[in-house]
């Protein structure tokens, strides 16, 4: 067993497999969590028949989706129809290669990082790769040969492209504060600074999260899949496993946006006030908590906020949605960059 082999081949492979499996599990149970939490908000119970308290529901859903008839509409463009779900699904998994969950820990003497790769342009990678999903949506809507799907696909593409711009600028404001594009570096910068970046960058956080909700096609920006108008939007004609890909990709994107929000603005895997309360966190009472747990708690809070939005708000009409993105969020995000830049200049001398 040569050291480089372990460090550069075995460990990353193991990490990849573990992360993939864990993510799939989390995403599957996220569907159940959404149904239950939404139900409790709506004075109902949610699925509680399959397994104890409905806990086996996602497994049942997986079996169902596998077993469904796989239809391709007669006049649909077959190759593109099959390509579209892949184009949506793969990028949402790909970004997890650079997202860090915690500190480095050792397993049998071998240091294992909590990320698969730490590249120094991590944020750029994430933004770039997740943009590929837009192709999947447009192609899916067009290839279905259905007016409803086409309209849904076009609407969604316009929405995603418009909201990427303020999202990018909000991220830029974080970069100004951290000085590095690497995600691990950003968390380290928050530890060094002693505060989470959402305190100085509160405006940026607000813009980022709103754009994140729009990017994942979630309520109140879920017009592309508005059931009451377009039946299903761009995924009307999909069934079976292909539909499952769209579905999983949506939840995966929710996780990505939440994770990035946590890393960029909420200190990643750091406990609250990491320097001030270092004594508390290092004390034998609490030192057994792995940093990963902090990260998980924060991500779950964001997911809850996603579900909360869905249960509360009506949805924006398409032109109003575009107006919010271009007329409000974009100038605000630019102003935010300016303010943060001035602040950094003043504070860091």
């Amino acid at each position: 067993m040569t050291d480089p082999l372990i460090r550069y081949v075995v460990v990353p492979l193991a990490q990849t497999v573990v992360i993939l499996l864990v993510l799939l599990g989390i995403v599957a149970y996220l569907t159940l969590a959404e149904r239950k939490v939404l139900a409790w908000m709506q004075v109902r119970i949610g699925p509680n028949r399959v397994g104890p308290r409905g806990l086996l529901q996602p497994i049942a859903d997986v079996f169902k989706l596998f077993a469904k008839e796989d239809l391709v509409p007669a006049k649909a463009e077959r190759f593109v129809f099959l390509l579209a779900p892949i184009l949506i699904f793969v990028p949402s998994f790909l970004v997890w290669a650079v997202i860090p969950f915690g500190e480095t820990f050792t397993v049998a003497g071998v240091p294992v990082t909590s990320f698969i790769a730490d590249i120094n342009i991590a944020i750029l990678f994430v933004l770039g790769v997740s943009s590929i999903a837009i192709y999947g949506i447009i192609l899916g809507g067009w290839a279905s040969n259905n007016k409803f799907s086409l309209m849904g696909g076009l609407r969604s593409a316009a929405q995603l492209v418009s909201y990427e711009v303020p999202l990018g600028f909000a991220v830029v404001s974080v970069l100004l504060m951290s000085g590095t594009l690497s995600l691990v570096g950003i968390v380290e910068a928050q530890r060094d600074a002693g505060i989470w970046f959402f305190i100085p960058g509160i405006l940026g956080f607000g813009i980022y999260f709103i754009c994140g909700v729009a990017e994942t096609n979630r309520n109140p920006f879920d017009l592309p899949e508005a059931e009451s108008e377009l039946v299903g939007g761009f995924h009307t004609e999909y069934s079976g496993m292909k539909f499952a890909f769209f579905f999983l990709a949506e939840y995966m994107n929710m996780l990505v946006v939440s994770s990035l929000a946590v890393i960029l603005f909420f200190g990643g895997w750091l406990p609250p006030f990491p320097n001030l309360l270092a004594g508390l966190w290092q004390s034998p009472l609490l030192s057994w908590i792995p940093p990963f747990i902090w990260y998980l708690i924060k991500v779950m809070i964001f997911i809850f906020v996603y579900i909360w939005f869905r249960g509360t708000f009506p949805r924006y009409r398409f032109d109003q949605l575009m107006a919010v993105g271009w007329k409000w969020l974009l100038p605000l995000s630019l102003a935010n960059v300016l303010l943060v830049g001035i602040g950094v200049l003043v504070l860091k001398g």
Partner: protein
Amino acid sequence: MTDQRLPSLFDVEEMELSFGPQHPATHGVLRVQLKLDGEKIVDAKPIIGYLHRGTEKLFETMPFPQCIPHTDRMDYVAAATNNQGFCVAMEKLLGITIPPRAAYIRMMLAELQRLASHLVWLATHAIDIGAITPFFYTFRERDAILDLFEEYCGARLTLNTMKIGGVPFELPAGWTERCSALVDGFPAHIDEYEELLTNNRIWKKRTIGIGVVSPEDAIDWGLTGPPLRGSGVRWDIRKVFPYDRYDEIDFEIPIGKNGDTYDRYLVRMVEMRQSVRILRQCLDRLPAGPVIAKIPKVLRARDGMVYGSVEAPKGELGYFIVTTDKATEPYRCRVRPPSFVNLQLLPDMVRGHLVADLVAVIGTLDIVLGEIDR
């Protein structure tokens, strides 16, 4: 080569979309044929008749009391007011006065039904615009109201709960207490719905300025009910042609200012509060006495025609009954459905709006296809 102009890059083609009979948002089997220019609606043509069951023809074959269950099935969401309309018209035709207790019971049933119908309207309207939670809250209250109905007449939806001359049954023991408890708890629930929607930015953006109807247009097109009141015309059959002792009860008629969807929403919310007020007064003042007038076993009319109308939750529901001498059945019974006349205005209301607004407008008109198609 013909000298036809070749299509240029900028030619605009209108897309024809059939907002088909089967659609999650059309509240029944309504088909709207849309001509779209991108997202903008150029023209909309509602096509109805999918639920036509020939109710008016059936009325001509049945004795008067037998017609009442058929009236339930027209506006199936608000069955009690359908019954009430028929009974009011027949009582006008036959010269029957109903006892005061019967009148108060009828008013209570009608106002409970108005609450139930407006709850359904709120649920479906909100869900069409994207707010999925009020649906569950309103149906919780509606279930309580339907339980009261079930206790009284045995049915939840198609009630058959009124007779010509009064009501068929005395109130069951404890019904007034349960009704009272419901009425006392109701304003808190209305506050709950209003908290979710009335001041919500997104809700206001989706409903203000959508589907505007001026008062002159409303009168010319024959709108009645909340759409007419939302446009600012103070008109309610319960105040103008009071039936069933509504003249003894205090209540107000809400009217809107701008005639848009938001105003109609507010009008209906205030109507719910006024219904609660009417119910409270009826419960407090419920007189003793018989619940049905003394009428002959076989009702025979003389020749004549009469029109009796009530304020259904959807608008003015009228029955035009024509009888021949000594007849036991109507010769012709025409139902004036409020949703039918209200729906006529749909093309004018949505021209120039986007597809998303079509759904909001259909919701705000509060149509029931059972009533439109009969």
